[in-house]
């Protein structure tokens, strides 16, 4: 066993874990802001808007994230227009491409989760808001969005964990997050057991913390939905 090598490179794993968390939370924060309005459009009365959002979520939920990432990181270079544009320095950076892919993917899943939550709000709550004379904006801010988010919590918790795990794909486009660090150490030292086991343990710990935190959040904010009869 070569655990000494892992101990020597613990600093790299710390850096990698930091990047993993950064990628996961940056993608989740941006996609959250995009998914809330999209969830409303997904349930819009205008059919064209509804189907446009459905088309987007279907494509991004129906294809592997790996393909989406490769389309953005490797694929866009195919077009001269993109290569000569001012945004090319951004688009040729793996970090930016990874974030774009993760945000597009996570927004698609989150939109469907929130749109489902929106559809399941009891009609009485919306009628009560109207009876109080709330404007459409006040209704959304005070009734619809809070009710939608609390109802979506369990599924959104799963999506957060999926995103945390999906960040491991960033290692395929040269980023040194937790999995990338493990791959680099296997290549540098010709050991194949310890680096991956260490990476797995790091992810397991992160998942455990995230799940526990989420249970607390759910108990605090969505507790009123539980213990109901019928």
């Amino acid at each position: 066993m070569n655990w000494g090598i892992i101990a020597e490179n613990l600093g790299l794993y710390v850096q990698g874990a930091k990047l993993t968390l950064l990628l996961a939370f940056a993608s989740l924060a941006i996609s959250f802001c995009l998914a809330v309005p999209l969830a409303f459009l997904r349930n819009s009365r205008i059919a064209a808007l509804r189907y446009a959002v459905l088309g987007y979520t279907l494509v991004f939920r129906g294809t592997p994230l790996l393909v989406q990432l490769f389309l953005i990181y490797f694929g866009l270079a195919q077009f001269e227009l993109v290569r000569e544009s001012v945004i090319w320095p951004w688009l040729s950076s793996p970090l930016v491409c990874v974030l774009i892919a993760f945000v597009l993917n996570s927004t698609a899943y989150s939109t469907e989760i929130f749109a489902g939550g929106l559809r399941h709000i009891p009609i009485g709550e919306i009628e009560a808001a109207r009876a109080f004379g709330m404007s459409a904006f006040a209704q959304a801010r005070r009734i619809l969005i809070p009710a939608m988010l609390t109802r979506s919590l369990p599924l959104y918790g799963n999506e957060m964990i999926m995103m945390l795990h999906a960040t491991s794909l960033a290692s395929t486009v040269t980023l040194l997050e937790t999995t990338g660090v493990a791959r680099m150490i296997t290549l540098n030292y010709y050991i194949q057991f310890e680096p991956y086991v260490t990476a797995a343990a790091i992810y397991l710990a992160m998942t455990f913390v995230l799940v526990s935190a989420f249970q607390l959040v759910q108990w605090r904010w969505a507790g009123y939905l539980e213990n109901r009869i019928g």
Partner: protein
Amino acid sequence: MTGVVAEFATTILAAGATTLLLGLASLLLATVLGLAAAFAKLSRSRALRHTAALYTFIVRGIPDLVVMLLVYYSVPALLNQAIDALGWDMRIEFSPIAAGIAALGLIFGAYMTETFKTALQNIPKGQIEAAVAYGLTRRRMFTRIILPHLVRLALPGFTNNWLVLAKATALVSLIGLQDVMFRAKGAAEATGMPFTFYLIAAGFYLSVTILSLAALTLIARRFEMGLRELAP
């Protein structure tokens, strides 16, 4: 130009057979593992319950890619160290397809466990009591009563797991299996047209998703035949 694209597109789509074989074999393994672990989780034996809980906790806490790398690289490395220690003269190495099936089966077995466990818990108790009252043997009770209910109740979760699994097969290209994704990468590098060929791969996975959704809706309708519904 279009001739080259068509030629590479054919080789990419031909690898669809490998992707589907990998997906279906993993699905089979995942179903078997999931059923076994679901029964273990509901079993009276504490040891079985804890083993199943540990399995789902670990597998669901690690990214798919890392599980795959563990199965493909770390497990053989560990076995070879043990073999060296014993002084035997042999080396263990997994083929990408075997490692892929094992890894995906292991991962999705954990997700299936939760699906099957919830489904088993939701079978109406009266059904099982009626089966006992009729004096059915345990085996008959399983095939005639529990299984049909299980299929109906587990189908939505099962469908979901299959859709995620079908997309996760793309990861096996990273350990060298010549599937759709691997061939798309090859074509992209050979022609300098990565967008075109990754888009073809994306189209393949999207059509698998859409066809599976359609097929499983039909199957669900078949198994919900005996269910009464309120008039709309």
